[in-house]
């Protein structure tokens, strides 16, 4: 028998890019399941249609696995949340379709979640940090944001490609192949620790924004010339990119005077980036937190948790209005649950 009054479980579906993931989170913020199934391309980057096909093939299995891990049955779910954007159209639509089907079948409410907001919220939930300047770095996004007047405001962002994208293209061009459980970023990080000589690369901070495409072109050029060991290239790439990220984060911190820095997104696992930000946090006498690895990558748990926050503030989405939003900016989203 279901308790109609007490809401307990939210199932969240993440499918913005190459990962299809389902998370189950309780309304009081306990993460019961977080199953991630990644699409690994044979060659090149993410092909949106192929990724979407992957998602639709594994969806049923991933949902079942999440329910099993959470030790609940499907009819115990009270709420369904899905990543509504930003992301790749075909991938987003696949996730949205699964979410709509579950909501309609179980007759439970549906919530659309902004992917970038979710990365911030899961960082806050899992680290306990309050009101930080967030550096969110992943394959598709590079954003420095902080809360102000009802929204997460973007203080700086990439003007062209994301940091993760830059790293992925470089690693692929260098001949590395992506394997499950070993992202390109991890390969670059490992090589970089053996690097010894810094090679000068374009350092492009414009006001509060950053640009990485020129840097990528430059390092690909150096790679093809073949005059430098790959370790030195990785080392120089990391040092340059992370210095840019840290500089903009420090500016945002000085500007907002927030009490801490939160690092989130797929690139958050990088130890060198962590150490740079930690140095800045110490100099400013503020906290520094990194989201745990399993919640740094795109994941369903972050969607479920953000869905709960939105639901508690009455932000549900009728199925007929649940279209996906490919270019949904972080700073377009009202976040009434954040108070400060």
């Amino acid at each position, binding site marked *: 028998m279901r308790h109609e009054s007490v809401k307990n479980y939210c199932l969240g579906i993440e499918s913005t890019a190459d990962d299809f993931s389902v998370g189950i989170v309780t309304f009081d913020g306990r993460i019961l399941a977080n199953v991630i199934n990644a699409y690994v391309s044979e060659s090149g980057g993410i092909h949106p249609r192929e990724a979407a096909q992957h998602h639709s093939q594994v969806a049923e299995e991933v949902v079942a696995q999440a329910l099993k891990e959470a030790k609940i049955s499907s009819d115990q779910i009270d709420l369904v949340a899905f990543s509504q954007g930003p992301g790749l159209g075909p991938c987003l639509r696949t996730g949205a379709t699964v979410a709509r089907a579950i909501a309609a079948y179980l007759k439970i409410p549906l919530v659309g979640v902004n992917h970038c907001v979710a990365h911030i919220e899961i960082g806050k939930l899992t680290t306990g940090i309050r009101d930080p300047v967030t550096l969110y770095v992943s394959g598709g996004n590079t954003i420095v944001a902080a809360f102000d007047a009802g929204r997460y405001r973007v203080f700086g962002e990439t003007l062209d490609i994301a940091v993760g994208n830059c790293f992925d293209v470089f690693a692929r061009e260098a001949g590395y192949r992506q394997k499950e459980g070993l992202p390109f970023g991890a390969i670059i990080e490992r090589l970089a620790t053996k690097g010894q000589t810094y090679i000068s690369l374009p350092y492009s901070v414009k006001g509060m924004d950053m640009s990485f495409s020129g840097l990528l072109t430059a390092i690909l050029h150096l790679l093809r010339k073949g005059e430098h060991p790959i370790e030195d290239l990785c080392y120089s790439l990391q*040092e340059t990119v992370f*210095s840019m990220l840290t500089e903009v984060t420090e500016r945002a911190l000085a500007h907002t005077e927030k009490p801490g820095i939160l690092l989130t997104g797929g690139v958050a696992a990088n130890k060198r980036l962590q150490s740079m930000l930690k140095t800045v946090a110490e100099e400013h006498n503020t906290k520094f937190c990194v989201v745990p690895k399993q919640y740094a990558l795109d994941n369903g748990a972050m969607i479920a948790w953000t869905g709960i926050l939105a639901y508690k503030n009455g932000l549900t989405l009728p199925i007929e209005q649940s279209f996906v939003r490919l270019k949904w900016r972080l700073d377009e989203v009202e976040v009434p649950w954040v108070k400060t």
Partner: protein
Amino acid sequence: MGEDLNYTMEDAVLLKKGAEANLYLKEWYGRKVIVKQRIGKKYRLPQLDRHIRAYRTVHEPQLMHRAKKAGVSTPTVLLIDTENAEIYMEYIEGKQLKQVLNEMPPEKRLKISSSIGELIGRLHKNMVIHGDLTTSNLILTPEDQIVLVDFGLGELSQELEARGVDLHLLKRAFESVHFKFAQECFNKVMESYARIIGEEEAKKVLEKVREIEKRGRYVSERKQR
């Protein structure tokens, strides 16, 4: 470099401590100068850090020079020291516009707003983006001349976005510190801006300002120091 060259910072007075640079006031060969010293960052590799600071120490005076050529008053640069990442420049007598805009007679306020618009128009027409246009960075001299300072976040660009952000920052500064007449001041700014840069372009920039506002990107006023 010995003390006989009057090169020491010992007698300098710290005016402002920033995230990127510190500003000092000191006596130098019988004149008052401002020394902008870019601070080393521990998180960066020392060689990258030196390179960035040296580059910016050269880049900023270049922008100031370009602004001057466009007819915008900026402090005269006296010395560029890339080794120590220091810029020696003329000390401008006067007050930050932020401190005096509220108290002045309305006609004067509008006249100054008009000059500001003209000044930004000249900058933008010559590809200079200031990057931190607030009323703290506009100095009003005793002769009622306006001098634009701190090109530390500046760049060369003709992009609508960059122009929009410049004007948006100024509008925000008006609204947060001078809210009573923010709108009339900004209208006056846009009016003379359009005269310099052309009606068509000014209209596009204003549209961009509105778009940026809606995005709410730079909603918080820069902390006024």
